[in-house]
């Protein structure tokens, strides 16, 4: 189950209107969905939030992958439903399960349509991140850079992980046998090589990057930059409005579950 869920969060390199939105815009969309989802527990609101994201999924051409991730999230949804049956009413259980799906969809949509590169660029522009980066690591873009590198290494390390499992199984290691304690210990021959490989790859990468002038002096420029276009401003305005209205309604009215 677990690995298929990840497919619903992986960036797909397409150039749809949704993909081309600025990552900051898309992040605000997530907030604009999050706030009403968390602030209300009304079934109609949840359904509305879910349906409103559908056009984005379709325009972004990621609807099929999203459906996959939903299918994989069935287990967790069922769990939430059952737990809430015991702690609340039948209707609130439905509402909360729907809320989980709304949140899942929102994050899934964000990660599927935002390239980690652009995320890195966006992080670069956020003042707070630059400040933190300078304090911790000495350079304003070090944090966003670390993030990009981590993302870049994920598919490579995933392959490494599978190779380590294969290699150790070829030495007689059986990961599906034994009591709980034995099974946990059996992961040591998997985790240690993987950790060391990750470290080795990172060091080699660092060496290669330093050989190309990293980190350079203060004043590193960038070939690419993020630009907010009119459509971004429109959506940002809409998102802020939704967030504002949600809070206003929350403080003035009591919305029941149904």
């Amino acid at each position, binding site marked *: 189950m677990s690995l298929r869920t990840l497919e619903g969060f992986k960036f797909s390199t397409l150039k749809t209107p949704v993909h081309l939105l600025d990552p900051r815009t898309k992040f605000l969309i997530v907030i604009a969905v999050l706030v009403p989802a968390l602030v209300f527990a009304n079934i109609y609101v949840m359904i509305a939030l879910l349906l409103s994201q559908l056009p984005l999924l379709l325009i972004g051409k990621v609807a099929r992958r999203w459906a996959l991730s939903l299918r994989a999230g069935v287990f967790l949804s069922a769990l939430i439903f059952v737990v809430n049956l015991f702690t609340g009413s039948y209707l609130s259980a439905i509402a909360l399960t729907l809320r989980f799906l709304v949140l899942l969809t929102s994050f899934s949509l964000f990660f599927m349509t935002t390239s980690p590169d652009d995320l890195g660029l966006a992080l670069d522009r956020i003042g707070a991140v630059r400040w933190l980066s300078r304090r911790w690591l000495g350079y304003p873009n070090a944090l966003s850079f670390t993030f990009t590198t981590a993302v870049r290494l994920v598919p490579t390390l995933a392959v490494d992980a599978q190779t380590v499992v294969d*290699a150790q*199984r*070829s030495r*007689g290691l059986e990961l599906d046998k034994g009591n709980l304690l034995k099974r946990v210990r059996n992961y040591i021959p998997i985790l240690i*090589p993987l950790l*060391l*490989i990750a470290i080795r790859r990172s060091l080699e990468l660092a060496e290669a990057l330093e050989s190309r002038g990293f980190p350079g002096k203060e004043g590193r420029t960038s070939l690419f930059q993020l630009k907010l276009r009119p459509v971004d401003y429109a959506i940002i305005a809409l998102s802020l409005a939704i967030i504002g209205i949600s809070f206003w309604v929350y403080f003035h009215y009591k919305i029941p579950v149904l």
Partner: protein
Amino acid sequence: MITLEKVSFTYRSGQRALQDVDLNIEGGDFIAIMGENGAGKTTLAKHLNGLLKPSQGRVLVDGDDTRKVSVAKLSRKVGLVFQNPDHLLFSETVKDEVAFGLKNFGFTPEVVHKQVERTLEALGLSEYAESSPFLLSGGERKRVALAAILATEPDYLILDEPTIGQDYQQKERLRNFILQLYSQGKAVVMITHDVEFVAESNPKVILLSQGRIVARGPADSVLSKDELVKKASLVRPQMSRLFGELAKYGLPGDVVDVHRARLLLEEKLLEAKARVAQNS
């Protein structure tokens, strides 16, 4: 004997990696599996110890169908040495590393101890028994990985790209070691793209291209054929290319080994000398 009967394999992503592969591997065999990147060499290797099960056809190891037996059980007979030793190494000492497989297969401590000692000696690693495997050089780590698989004395040894990054002397040692193994009756299968190493070691060559076996035979016949070599993204061994250029002097085209090349050239050169002596 390991038998592959009409083995085809398709990855879950839909990528077809192997098609209709028929192959027999017996004790005493020395086989080199060659082919371009993505030809299916590693996929084929993983079928030999059950890590991958065929989508169609079947793989029999000494009569056992790999779909019916666990990888652990198959690994007792089929030792697969992965290309990058860092994918295996995790123990505190080289001794512990080499003992790992033996312990997994349930041997007694006395047997484990003896086998570890023997294997370390055979590979020239005795002095490193108590060292940490991570502090050794690249070549030494490769030997430790090899020792770890050899310790359990598998009948079939599969080596994935064992010559990458090795200098000439290290490759010589490896060649001699392989010779020892297959003359002892073990089967050695080597996945490689090192044409010169193959030319000098003379294994039986199996050429894979796009998942199919496109040629099989002795190194000198397979590696001297231009179209085959090109398909597999290889180059002809130096001797073969040299003799290609010298074809007009009546020299055969299927030479890959330096020593055979020398004998053939000796003949022609002595003839030439005789001619010169006659004419003067």
